[in-house]
């Protein structure tokens, strides 16, 4: 096993009576990764995360975290993990401060006032430290969830939908915090999110699962730049360019056009050839923009188009 590998999952399967929620799943997360964990509803994401945190026992397969088998070294592993699993729930009848203090004590970590207030400040809840959690909005609970996940300074942070319920400013703050933790602190972040644009911005590697099975895994750049890309070509004279293209082999790749923009479906390696064709045909090209959003890619993968 790679010494830098933080999570190594092999053949993970979970059967709930008639339903196979996770089916022979393999995944690999490396130190310093912001690892996007994607899949449609019911794909098995939450079940997988619960198995990683020993909330659910796998039917078969193996989980190694920090090179240690989870089943045998659960305590040592969990000591180095901070997590939010689905929505963060707390003891509603206790204050934010007391919740963190109790959870910190269970984790046998520093529960000094300074440390707890530092965490509350980090997530912007320092002024509400003494308020009972039952008075918190969902977004505030989400922030408190992040604070409890970071309280014991874990090496691996598992976040399940961490920005749900936050306003745009809050979402950006959490995104920035995740990037800070990864880049400045060297933490590994395992991020499950439905907000694909968020994952696209912050994830370095990702996996897409569907029906409990891994569909693709790799670097975000590598995966988004593989397969068929949507390429926008902006030209000076679209009418002349269209007639040139229709008489060439590029006609099949041309999807549509609007104003001065022509839209192609191309493989990455075809882009220079198209550019060369246009230049040699004396077509002034103002811009050539290969684009594929993670959303397009995600839908293509989960709908079985790639």
């Amino acid at each position: 096993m790679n010494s830098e590998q933080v999570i190594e999952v092999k053949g993970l399967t979970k059967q709930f009576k008639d339903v196979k929620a996770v089916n022979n799943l393999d995944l690999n997360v490396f130190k310093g990764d912001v690892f996007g964990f994607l899949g449609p509803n019911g794909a098995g994401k939450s079940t997988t995360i619960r198995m990683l945190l020993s909330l659910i026992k796998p039917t078969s397969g193996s989980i190694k975290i920090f090179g240690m088998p989870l089943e045998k070294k659960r305590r040592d592993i969990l000591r180095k993990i901070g997590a939010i699993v689905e929505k963060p729930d707390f003891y509603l009848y206790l204050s934010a401060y007391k919740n963190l203090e109790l959870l910190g004590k269970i984790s046998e970590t520093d529960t000094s006032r300074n440390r707890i207030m530092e965490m509350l400040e980090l997530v912007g809840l320092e002024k509400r430290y003494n308020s009972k959690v039952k008075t918190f909005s969902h977004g505030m609970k989400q922030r408190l969830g992040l604070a409890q996940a970071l309280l014991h300074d874990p090496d691996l942070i598992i976040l399940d939908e961490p920005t749900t319920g936050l306003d745009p400013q809050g979402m950006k703050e959490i995104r920035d915090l995740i990037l800070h933790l990864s880049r400045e602190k060297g933490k590994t972040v395992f991020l499950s999110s439905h907000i694909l644009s968020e994952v696209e911005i912050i994830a370095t590697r990702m996996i897409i699962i569907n029906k409990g099975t891994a569909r693709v895994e790799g670097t975000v750049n590598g995966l988004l730049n593989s397969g068929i890309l949507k390429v926008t070509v902006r030209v000076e004279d679209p009418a002349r360019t269209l007639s040139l293209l229709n008489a060439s082999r590029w006609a099949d790749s041309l999807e549509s056009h609007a104003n001065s923009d022509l839209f192609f479906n191309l493989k990455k390696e075809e882009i220079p050839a198209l550019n060369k064709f246009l230049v040699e045909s004396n077509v002034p090209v103002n811009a050539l923009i290969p684009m594929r959003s993670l959303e397009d890619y995600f839908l293509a993968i989960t709908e079985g188009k790639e």
Partner: protein
Amino acid sequence: MLSLISIELYKIFKKWRTYIGFIAIGLLAPLIHLSFYLAGERSATFAFRNLSDSFIFAGNLLNGYFISNLILQSLFVHIPFLVVLVGGDLLAGEATGGTYRMLVTRPVSRFEIITAKFIAAVIYTALLILWLAIMSLGLGLLIFGSGPLVAFKTKIIIFAANDVLWRFMAAYAFAILSMTVVITLAFLFSSLVENAIGPIVSTMAVIIIFFIISVIDIDFFNTIRPYLFTNHIAGWSYFFEDPVDYSKVLKDAGVLAIHIAVFYGAALYIFSKKDILS
């Protein structure tokens, strides 16, 4: 483990439902004291009316010991319904609140979580019985003073004043054991479900059914009766016999201890195997 137990106790005593039992006892016991206090001599005449023809009474019979014994006998059967309010919530409450996830993803074993909760439940039970002792015996002695205890069971026994206190202490200790069985049963039911109402109602139902079986004189019920914990939870009353039949005390205590071990073991097994889906 000590830290976990203190956390569990903190959580228990931060919940309103925990105080229902304390409030109920805190109201009922003084009310009984007050009624005897206001009735004065009339209540003593009423209490000993059947004996006054055969005995000549001298001294303070309507004393703290007598009233405490009366309270213990009348309230004891209701205390199970108070302890289940806490016992039924111990695990199911975590499931309902979603806090199972927070607990189980910490670097503590499920055995430690269950055991800490169980010990906290026993401590709560002990404190509730201690409260009963304070409100019945403590308050009784304060208001009515001490004196010989007239105990009615299959026969009338009169204990000298200096022979009573230890009997109460032993009876309250036994009562803790009895109520621990009840709270452990609620704890077991609590490990099975994700809503506290179910375990509370189920435990109450089991106690009521067992109590009914205990009093119906049918051969089949007579056969199973010795195995029902409800048949042994009143073992504290042996301490108000003379001489105390320790073989019966030990037998009842043994049966109750076995029930506690089985209920706790089952809860531990269920929780250890449980997939946390809440």
